[in-house]
């Protein structure tokens, strides 16, 4: 078991390196040397100093290595636009909010989506099933900014129940989390339902019932555990969705998170901020996939013995 985990962790390192490399290459294409831009009136001598400090006078490959070293030591460099601010500072200030939003949205999706899917599966082919599936199909298709707008319109403006922006009080966190988590919730419901329906047909479920086990145990243990396996594999890419979705939600609800900052950084050509943030986001995605793989290994013992 441990060997399995170690092996998976080991493989994330080259992946991360490649990701950094790709981002690095892509960023280089944008505008070459950021210090030479005419909008920034940096005196020639200072420019040369800065270049030397940031290794910009060395070949690109060397720059890449320096950057990787930086990442490994959690030093993502300074912002190129805002004087005196490091990327790390920006991250520390804005990132936690985005993470919180993402976590709440994810929790909402699970807490509402999974039971919904289970209900639909256990009441297969009844009104409950059809209703739940219709509901989740619709909400999977609706873009999150529509959900957000509708929520704001009806709950915040009409009913005046919850605030429309900011990320301060616990009330202000409800609507954005729900808006972001809606589509994932619908996806979970569909996946859980499909998976459970398939599991319920399996022979070993029949065996479990033949043993006289209480129905609750049959469903709760035998069925649920096996149903969740394919659902978990879908959870990985879902994280990617939540990250991208948060950009939009943060914009609508005026939440000072990473998403907002990212776009600003790109338009202002803040080279290091964009790099740093992208690497950060990529690391999260990779880490999430790693977790999913490990979880999969825990739940399905067959994968542990297979070659990774």
């Amino acid at each position: 078991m441990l060997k399995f985990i170690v092996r998976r962790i080991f493989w994330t390192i080259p992946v991360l390196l490649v990701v950094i490399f790709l981002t690095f290459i892509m960023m280089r294409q944008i505008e070459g040397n950021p210090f030479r831009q005419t909008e920034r009136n940096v005196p020639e001598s200072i420019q040369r100093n800065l270049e030397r400090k940031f290794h910009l006078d060395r070949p690109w490959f060397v720059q890449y290595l320096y950057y990787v070293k930086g990442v490994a030591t959690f030093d993502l460099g300074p912002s190129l636009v805002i004087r005196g601010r490091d990327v790390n500072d920006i991250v520390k200030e804005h990132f936690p909010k985005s993470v919180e939003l993402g976590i709440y949205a994810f929790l909402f999706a699970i807490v509402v989506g999974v039971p919904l899917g289970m209900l639909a599966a256990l009441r297969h082919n009844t009104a409950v099933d059809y209703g739940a599936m219709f509901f989740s199909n619709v909400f999977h298709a609706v873009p999150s900014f529509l959900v957000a707008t509708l929520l704001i319109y009806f709950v915040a403006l009409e009913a005046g129940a919850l605030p429309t922006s900011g990320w301060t009080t616990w009330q202000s966190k409800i609507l954005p989390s729900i808006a972001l988590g809606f589509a994932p919730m619908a996806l979970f419901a569909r996946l859980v339902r499909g998976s459970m329906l398939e599991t319920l047909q399996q022979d070993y479920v029949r065996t479990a019932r033949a043993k006289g086990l209480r129905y609750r145990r049959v469903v709760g243990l035998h069925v649920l555990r096996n149903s969740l396996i394919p659902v978990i594999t879908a959870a990985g890419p879902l994280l990617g969705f939540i990250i991208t979705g948060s950009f939009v939600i943060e914009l609508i609800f005026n939440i000072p998170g990473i998403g907002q900052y990212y776009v600003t950084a790109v338009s202002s050509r803040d080279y290091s901020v964009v790099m740093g943030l992208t690497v950060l986001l990529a690391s999260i995605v990779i880490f999430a996939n790693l977790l999913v793989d490990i979880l999969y290994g825990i739940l399905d013992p067959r994968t542990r013995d297979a070659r990774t």
Partner: protein
Amino acid sequence: MALLEVDDLRTHFFTREGTVRAVDGVSFAVEKGKTLGIVGESGCGKSVTALSIMGLIPKPPAKIVSGSVMYEGSDLTKLSERELEDVRGREIAMIFQDPMTSLNPTLTVGTQITETIRRHYDVSQKQANKKAAELLEKVRIPRAAERLLDYPHRFSGGMRQRVMIAIALSCDPKLLIADEPTTALDVTVQASVLDLLDDLRHEYDMSMIIITHDMGVVAEAADDIIVMYAGQVVERASTLDLFDNPEHPYTEALLGALPQIEGANVRDGRLTAIPGRPPDLIDPPAACRFGPRCRYAGSDDCTKHEPQLREIRSGHWVRSAHPASERAGSRKPQEVGS
């Protein structure tokens, strides 16, 4: 008194294409300490019969429309799901055909045995584990205690079937239903599993129903046999009597399809195959269901009326208008010593 008595059981499947009468008037009894064999080709209703006894038929499309299953004084078809859960595993146990898929791949073998024990008896996990190890030894799995912690995919097909048997025996049931227990196994493994079942049956003083399409298996394992065709019982007799003096044309054909190497029944020439196919069970005609494939059919008794099950000899029942001993030119069957 018989341990289990099935009386005129009818289980129908209500589907969009029509009502499939999978089990249509099946009656038999299982005596204490004896083994009943149920033979028939695929689709004849033998598995559905077994599942109906256990109440494991899929309830939305299927339903037991009439008949009774008497076990120790109560009619199983009238019990609630909770009451049935008490009977399953504890009084009547069942093992299934495909050992590869019948065990949960994500739980250890030990868990799957102990959860059965702890469901029906109030014992601690440790005691249950001990019993589970004993059971694995009993079904001849080496290094039983270590193996408890293994997952099903670490076992071969034959060993998984033994695990299934261990699970089935864990609560000392009075009746074991084995649905095609050897069909999915290699021939050499088949023999050992059958031997195991036989030994255990005697040791636990258990009754058994063994369902199969393989005449060789019932010849070895069963005391009495019922032959099923198209959802009905077409012949019922003791094993000896059935093999020596088959009455129903279908049974004859089944036995005729068996290769005989020596003995009185050696034939020259080809094995006889039974032409045609079983009838569609959605709207069976009110006539003998075997008629279209029977070489003796023709008179009104077969084509206009459905023959009833009647006792042609002591302990030998047949559902046919033309049983062997009544055909012209047939020799009278020798009385078989009981």
